[in-house]
């Protein structure tokens, strides 16, 4: 089982490699990837340095080009694909049918992984991407239960990669237009969700309010932990109750599921968080490396160690963790 870790810059990539990542995924510094944040990601020169660093130490590098180009931006995406091919990356992570076609035709030697942004949840959709573009691996949306992942692993015509740890998308990735409904910019079109330039913090008496493009996302009492106003993680009113109507600000943590995922034949586990610090990447990679090695050595008796869980909890969003959709009652 491969450990796939995020890097938003060279220090994070080094942290991932040094702590035992089998592969690191990165993006270029524009809207061709789904973490298009100011100051984040790689230009060609830095990417070459990153790939050199990783390859010399036996780690792979994947490049995410996983947003959806519109007509006028098309060349930016094809340039990104060509640049990644020239850099001799180990795989591209892609979602858009048009761009996948371009990559498969121009660079047939370059392995393609299907991004979570393509929303593939069943064997027939995987068959589409395999038949059309020869994808070798698919990253699953964070919507399937463990039993459903097992069935899909049995039926899938390609290798599967699942999210193991990090921020939790409650919606099917690639099929969510909530962010563009509120701000005009979405993961699909701009590589952003609830973008920072639309965020406003406002003190209102004792309370702190977070707004996204003027829409009130949450109100925090003095002393309450105020999280980033990702719009699906705010408190809203339904049927007269004010609560996290869609999702709490929690992180996904599947460490205890590791033996099951391994038995199912899941090929890789993915850590979310290209927008996070090198310290986050180092800590999470370190724990997961130890856990995967321990689980491989002794799957029958594997138990997550308390110190691992503590280390992960300390970097989790909202410091709460959940099994998410893998655990049926969450749904």
């Amino acid at each position: 089982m491969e450990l796939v870790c995020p890097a938003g810059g060279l220090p994070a990539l080094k942290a991932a490699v040094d702590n035992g990542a089998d592969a690191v995924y990165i993006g270029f510094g524009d809207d061709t990837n789904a973490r298009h944040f100011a100051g984040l990601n790689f230009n060609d020169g830095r990417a070459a340095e990153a790939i050199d660093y990783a390859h010399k130490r036996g780690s792979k590098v994947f490049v995410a080009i996983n947003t959806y180009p519109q007509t006028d931006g098309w060349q930016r995406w094809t340039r990104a694909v060509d640049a990644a091919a020239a850099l001799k990356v180990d795989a591209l992570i892609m979602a858009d049918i048009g761009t996948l076609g371009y990559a498969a035709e121009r660079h047939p030697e370059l392995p393609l992984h299907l991004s979570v942004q393509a929303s593939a949840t069943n064997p027939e959709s995987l068959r589409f991407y395999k038949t059309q573009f020869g994808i070798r691996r698919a990253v699953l949306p964070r919507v399937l239960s463990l039993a459903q992942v097992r069935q899909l692993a049995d039926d899938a015509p390609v290798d599967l990669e699942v999210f193991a740890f990090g921020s939790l998308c409650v919606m099917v990735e690639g099929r969510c237009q909530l962010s563009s409904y509120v701000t005009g910019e979405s993961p699909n079109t701009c590589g952003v969700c609830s973008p920072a330039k639309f965020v406003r913090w406002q003190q209102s008496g004792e309370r702190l309010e977070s707004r996204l493009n003027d829409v009130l996302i949450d109100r925090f009492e003095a002393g309450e932990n105020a999280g980033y106003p990702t719009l699906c993680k705010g408190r809203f009113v339904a049927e007269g109750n004010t609560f996290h109507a869609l999702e709490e600000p929690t992180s996904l943590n599947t460490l205890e599921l590791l033996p099951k995922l391994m038995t199912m034949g899941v090929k890789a586990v993915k850590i979310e968080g290209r927008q996070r610090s090198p310290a986050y990447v180092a800590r999470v990679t370190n724990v997961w490396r130890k856990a995967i090695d321990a689980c491989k050595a002794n799957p029958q008796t594997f138990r997550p160690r308390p110190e691992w869980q503590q280390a992960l909890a300390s970097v989790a969003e909202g410091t709460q963790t959940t099994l998410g959709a893998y655990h049926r009652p969450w749904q």
Partner: protein
Amino acid sequence: MRISLGPNLYFWPRERLDDFYARAAELPVDIVYLGETVCSKRRPYGLEEWLDLARALRAAGKEVVLSTLTLIEARSELGVMKRLCLNGEFTVEANDIGAVQLLSDQGVPFVTGPNINVYNPQTLRRLKSMGLRRWVVPVEISRASLQRLLEEAATLGLLDGLETEVCSYGRLPLAYSARCFTARAHNLPKDNCQLKCREYPEGLAVRTQEGNDFLTANGIQTQSGLVQNLLPHWREMRDMGISVMRISPRPEGTESAVRALRALLDGDRADPAELGPACDGFWRGTAGMAPLSAGL
């Protein structure tokens, strides 16, 4: 331009559906989409009953398209999607790319729904080579971007035998999840949802703490809080070469929207702003929730 009635996105009991489609047969719509696109636990009709309804609407002069479920998680859901794709009688609207695969295996022409991510002409070309004959534009694509896409598609020779449909009236389908938000609002897990969404014929309003319309919970689907109304933009659509304007069913107001659009397309007077407060931001290239611009 033609008018379509999109698939009903809500969980309505059979009686309401029977009544709604009996009236739809009399409405001036050209195309009717039928089927459950949101949640497999809602089974107001079985496949045979949907087919009977489809035949009745066809006999009333409508073009009928069967819509698949959007999020396929369980093997049983895949089985239902396969049976729909193999119906052998009616065109299918694929709402998951797996359905595209199944339909192209059989060599039958198909339609793609708004959640199939077609953002550029290269994607259109690939799908057309597999049998696409009409595509519904993803809701977040702006007029300007769609215009460029269609110009480029025309240059590539893709528009012969390919129609473009725009979601033009109704609440916007914005997101899908493993979680049922209607059940969550009642503190119920999805596996014991008690089919709560039956109690909300137009979804459950989710408002901000300031009381503003925000979103609408419709089972595992999240819709816009506001109704989108692009009827005032019908001339632009006609001039761009849009073939079909889609009206999404609501418990009330569907008929008024259809009649207003029919009047506009026929060159008669109608004031689409009378249909009530609405948004049209996506079309104008801004936040989708932006209110319908005044003075159109």
